[in-house]
């Protein structure tokens, strides 16, 4: 009969230490859209990794449809800043909300 010497302490020392999820918080971002600068290129809603943005029905003074945050996805933005970086018209930016 083979007995396996199972030492949990040893496993924890050799392997990767598990992270404590209580100490980590998913960042939360709020998207601000300057609607009158938008030219509807579609980069923000195509390259948003969390798919938070979509085309809106609102028409700005130049006749373009600016983006808007999808209904019910307001808390899904993780403030990665991709929309801010990719927007050629300086029409969108993300503010990270920090409530401690």
């Amino acid at each position: 009969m083979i007995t396996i010497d199972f030492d949990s302490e040893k496993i924890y020392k050799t392997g990767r230490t598990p992270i404590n999820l209580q100490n980590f918080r998913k960042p939360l971002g709020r998207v601000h859209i300057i609607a009158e600068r938008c030219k509807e290129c579609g980069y923000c809603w195509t390259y948003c990794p969390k798919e938070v943005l979509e085309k809106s029905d609102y028409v700005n003074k130049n006749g373009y449809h600016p983006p808007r945050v999808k209904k019910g996805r307001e808390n899904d933005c993780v403030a990665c800043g991709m929309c801010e970086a990719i927007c050629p018209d300086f029409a969108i930016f993300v503010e990270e909300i920090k409530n401690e």
Partner: protein
Amino acid sequence: MVEEIVHPKDAYLRSDRFPHIWCPGCGLGIVLKSYVDAISKLDIPYNNHVLVSGIGCTARLPGYANVDSYHTTHGRAIPFATGLKIVNPELQVTVISGDGDLFNIGGNHIIHAARRNMDLLVVCVNNFNYGMTGGQHGATTPEGARTSTTPYGNIEHSFNLPYIMSSLGASYVARWTSLHVRQLTRSIMKAMKIRGFSFIEVISPCPPNFGKYNRFSDGLSQMQFFYENSVLDNNADLSEAYIDFTGKRPLIVGEFVHRIRPSYIDLEKELIRKAMEEP
């Protein structure tokens, strides 16, 4: 009543001129954003930045950045920038101009600036045609691509910009597309710290001219082409780094060259010191 929101980068922009003149889907706004992002993060004093450009769509860019800027004659951005740098070596001189301005009309100037290893950062925004004048073909138009003056396909061999600059001894050579925003910002920040000639090629969509003739219906489809075909290879064989839009050849991007060579300003200072010592 719409509440007034101010973009965080508006402090570095002449925001009263916005929205800018560039077409929907143009990559030039992204290059402007990368530039202002880089100067906002670097520790170089804000007043030391100078932005020089020639003529073309890209050359409108200094008009939107709130730094000292020069909109010079066609193709002569590099001589203006060289003069600025020699007279005032503490300035951080950046040239942002298009492929038509830097390589077609001003081709000779950029070759000699790279040969001298002049302390400049040159960002060439390549959209493969003359965008402002109606999409005529130029020296950077890929073989086989259609433009308004080559409706049956271009038969000329195109320039391979990183290969030319590398062969002339530039200190830093990189190529990105306008989709690689963060890499481009990091690249500009790195190149501003390098003494010597730094060259960054940015491949940009041109939806109403180059895109229209090459079956890219809008800027987004051209961006998707970059997304699907670009391959990061920092040690690429630059002689093979040609661009074509057939999809057969990958679009090689990366930081290709980073070599340490004495720059023109360093050599000039050394020469003056030696000459003053002699009796």
